[in-house]
């Protein structure tokens, strides 16, 4: 990939760049200091506790954790789960991206939106209905029995959840594949078609061209998506807890943190988990993330999409439609659950009620959780937009000194499980002047900060990807014509990356509303519960068999709310909505 030469009238003299970089250093330090305080200090407090034993610094718990076969087996299983989820996402995401970018067919817009819909459902609510649908005596098997494909008296029906592992991986993948799809589509759109055309001219077939030319060029984009998916799955507690799949390190950490007397072993386990996340990330980056796409210019011409014939269209419909149906089935199940009054031993409920939907708006605690979530997520998104743009400019455009460190710091939350960060905030606010903003006080600030810190990588990635793809030469041209650096950034660069920013902001908001682990730890008083905590609370509340359905009803409201968010984004962007998803 050739770099554009510097504009002849404005050679890249060192002075203006150095000045901009120098002027930006205080901002860089301010942001880095903030991140250090909100991310490193709490983590440091948690991790340090893991290396304390009987009042002195010691590696006691570290050796105990590494020597514990159950914990090590859980760690291996967690890696396996994350790999399975990521593999499934790649399998689903790449073909969808090819269809999206390289093909045109009737109904493409609708199907393209449908396959994005799974992102709006908290997957751990899907887990509720998944048990009704896919468990051994769930709807799928009852249906198969009814049509004569299964005979329960001869053989016990299969457990489609595979003892939990398969269920968790499938549910996570069905929730996360749109992330990979979006990243893959963006990467594919930016691959200059001249390379594949050259390969085809030299006699390579379409598959060979895709595998040998296009896929490697997409690798950094795929790596970005796969990283998000892998770490999300590796550190997820919501889905495994709801499917009662316990053999995972995050679940063990979560349960031990929930105890009043959390000890050094738990914090040391946190350290092991963190180290594993960072090691796996570094390994992945080393193996897949080093291609030169970051330095590549945006494809100067778009590949001519291929108009599919009847067979191709049907195939595309089958793939996208089938995937959408599969991904939306748990969501439909949640709606059914929310409306069901009796659902025992039958494919569908035999009695329906609106009482669970009414419960959500009449039960003060449940209604309050919706209001709380909106407040928390909006505040967190606002913070992330500002920080995300600032960090991306500092790192990608202004190229401040130590930008690598700043970028790593901003990306670190990807490797930090939410519940661990939450434990850090609990430790920070356990005593002293911050106690009133701790979990037992009003946790608005720590919840917003936790959501914002955890989702900051989305925003930085979104903004950085946009900036990387917009050639600096456009800004330089503006400056050549007399615009100031700030004016060039505001009038040229920001509009060009607006689609990326809005996409990242929508994702940040959606994922903040769906945030599980921070919410479970940091909101301890019912009046401050966000939606997810209330759903979890209802779903696992012991007494009545009705409460999981009330949880499902709250999940339905959550889906509707996030659907409305997406629709609002679409209305705001009009025809450029597609650009978000291709970005």
């Amino acid at each position, binding site marked *: 990939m050739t770099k554009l030469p510097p504009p002849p009238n404005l050679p890249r003299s060192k002075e203006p760049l150095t000045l901009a970089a120098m002027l930006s250093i205080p901002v860089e330090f301010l942001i880095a200091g903030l991140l250090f305080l909100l991310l490193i200090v709490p983590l440091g407090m948690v991790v340090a506790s893991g290396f304390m034993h009987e009042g002195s610094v010691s590696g006691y718990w570290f050796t105990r954790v590494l020597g514990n076969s159950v914990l090590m087996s859980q760690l291996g299983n967690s890696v396996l789960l994350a790999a399975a989820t990521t593999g499934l996402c790649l399998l689903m995401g790449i073909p969808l991206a090819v269809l999206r970018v390289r093909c045109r067919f009737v109904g493409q817009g609708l199907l393209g939106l449908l396959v994005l819909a799974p992102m709006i459902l908290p997957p751990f609510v899907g887990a509720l209905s998944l048990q009704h649908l896919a*468990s051994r*005596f769930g709807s799928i098997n009852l249906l198969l029995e009814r049509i004569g494909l299964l005979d329960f008296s001869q053989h016990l029906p299969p457990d489609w959840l595979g003892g939990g592992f398969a269920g968790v991986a499938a549910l996570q993948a069905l929730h996360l594949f749109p992330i990979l799809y979006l990243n893959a589509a963006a990467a594919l759109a930016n691959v200059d078609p001249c390379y594949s055309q050259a390969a085809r001219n030299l006699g390579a077939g379409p598959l060979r061209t895709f595998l040998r030319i296009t896929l490697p060029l997409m690798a950094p984009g795929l790596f970005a998506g796969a990283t998000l998916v892998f770490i999300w799955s590796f550190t997820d507690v919501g889905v495994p807890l709801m499917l009662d799949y316990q053999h995972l390190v995050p679940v063990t950490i979560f349960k031990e943190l929930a105890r009043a007397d959390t000890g050094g072993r738990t914090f040391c386990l946190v350290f092991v988990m963190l180290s594993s996340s960072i090691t796996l990330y570094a390994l992945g980056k080393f193996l897949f993330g080093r291609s030169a796409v970051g330095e590549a210019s945006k494809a100067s011409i778009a590949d001519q999409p291929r108009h599919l014939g009847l067979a191709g269209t049907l195939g595309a419909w089958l793939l996208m439609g089938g995937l959408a149906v599969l991904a939306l089935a748990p969501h439909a199940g949640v709606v059914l659950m929310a409306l069901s009054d009796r659902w*025992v031993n039958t494919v569908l409920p035999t009695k329906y009620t609106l009482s669970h939907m009414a419960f959500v708006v009449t039960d003060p605690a449940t209604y309050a959780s919706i209001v709380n979530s909106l407040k928390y997520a909006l505040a967190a998104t606002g913070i992330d937009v500002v920080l995300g743009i600032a960090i991306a400019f500092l790192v990608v455009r202004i190229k401040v000194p130590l930008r690598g460190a700043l970028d790593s710091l901003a990306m670190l939350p990807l490797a930090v499980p939410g519940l661990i960060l939450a434990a850090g905030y609990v430790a920070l606010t356990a005593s002293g002047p911050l106690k009133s903003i701790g979990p037992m006080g009003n946790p608005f600030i720590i919840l917003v900060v936790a959501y914002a810190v955890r989702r900051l990588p989305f925003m930085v990635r979104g903004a950085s990807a946009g900036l990387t793809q917009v050639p600096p030469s456009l800004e330089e041209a503006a400056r050549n014509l007399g615009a100031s650096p700030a004016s060039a950034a505001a009038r040229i660069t920001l509009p060009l990356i607006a689609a990326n920013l809005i996409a990242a902001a929508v994702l940040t908001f959606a994922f903040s509303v769906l945030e599980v682990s921070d919410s479970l730890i940091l909101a301890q008083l019912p009046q401050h519960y966000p939606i997810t905590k209330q759903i979890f609370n209802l779903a696992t509340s012991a007494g009545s068999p009705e409460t999981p359905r009330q949880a499902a009803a709250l999940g339905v409201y959550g889906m509707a709310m996030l659907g409305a968010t997406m629709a609002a984004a679409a209305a705001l962007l009009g025809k450029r909505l597609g650009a978000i998803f291709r970005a």
Partner: protein
Amino acid sequence: MMAAATALAGCSSATDNLPDDARTREADAQVRSHWGKGLDALPQETLVLISPNNRNIQQEFEWAFSLDQAVRRGRRVRMEWRDVGGGGSTIRTYLTNVYSRSDSSGIDVLWGGGDAGFIPLAQAGVLAPLDLSSDVREQIPAELSGTAMYDKDRRWAGSALSAFGFIYNAGMLRRCGIEAPATWQDLSAKPLAGLVSLADPTQSSSAAAAYQMIVWSGRDWPDGWARLLAIMANADRFTDSAGTAASAPLVGTALVATCIDFYGALRVAEAPGELIYVSPRGGTTFSPDPIAILKNPPHPELAKEFVDFVLSSRGQALWALPVGVPQGPSRNLLGRMPIRKDVYRLYEGRLMGGITDPFQAGQSMTLAPFARKVDFGVLRQLVKAAAVDSLPALKAARAALAAATPDQAAALAADFNRLPENIATIEGVTAVAKAIKDDTQRERIVTDWQRFFAEKYARIARASSMGVPPMSGTGVSPVHSPTAPQEHGRDAHATFTAGGRP
């Protein structure tokens, strides 16, 4: 009318503000016929309570008691439920702290959470003596199979009973051609392999209590443990929440689940006939869920009225009658067992399914001498190490046992049932109970148990596949780690045989 409804229901939430015309009209008419004025016009008094009981229980008793007071005493009762941000143990800590500094907590009544929490509070002098009427003392026995139903100094009295058993999906068991279980040991039957839903006892104390019943049903500690292990080998999975486990037969993830009685009763009400709850006859104790008046209550007279109401046959009927029937709860099933003997006679045939009369001869378990020494904490950790943390290996070992040749079976079963040496006897359990109170020691002991069970299960699976007995009763594994606890050799136990079913 709305105002009357909110007045009667104490106006504690938006749910209570929902129009419920029939219920409110009827209540208002009753009050008018007695006092010549509506509910709104009655003088108001407040009662302050603290209780881990769920909202349904609070609301039903609040409505019924308020109506009773409005009609009989001509007063409106506003019930204030104090929330201290937690359940039974949080409330206990709170009250202990408050009374260590002050003579009164400003709270009248403490209700629910199990007798274990009330005994230390009574000893600490936090509870005021109750004046139990002769009618109450006649209908509530002082003891049931050795368990006190009220405090000997009358500091607390049982307000309901709790028992343990299992719920099963009778309809689906029929379709699968599997016999319905009737006793604890039936849960270890081979056809139920992978079909039993259990909860993690370190996460749920009611799950742990059910496992304690199963152990208590044995002849001695090793026999009781073997019975429990055989059932756990049939587990589909271990859930965190006892409610999720109990819902498994309803949702379809499993067909049987152990649970506390009222989780069972509430689920049975959803699909009577399809779902059945059983407290196995002679297989469970019945423990009281107490009520007490706190020391120096702000409203002593009203507090006594409330306790009397809860312990009356009218109040007790609320626990077990279906919704909407005369004297039953008005909106929510409660599904708990009344503690008064007469309620089972007075409402015979009308109580909801799954409610067993605990006073029938033979219904309650008679505890063997070893039972009280089975430490709850040790049992929880042991179940976690032996089953929750190693379920796939446990299931594989069970399958290996079932497939073992007759000459292998006895040795394999003996190995399967063998306990770690430090808890092989009930005296050992008592010693370990003290040790695990320390975090570091508990971690070491539990890690050793995990290794012990993992090695044992792997050994059984291997021995069975190779067709050789594991170790000829020497009690020493060929792969035994030097740091693992030495195994306790004992005779092959009949609980697990090669055939699987005891």
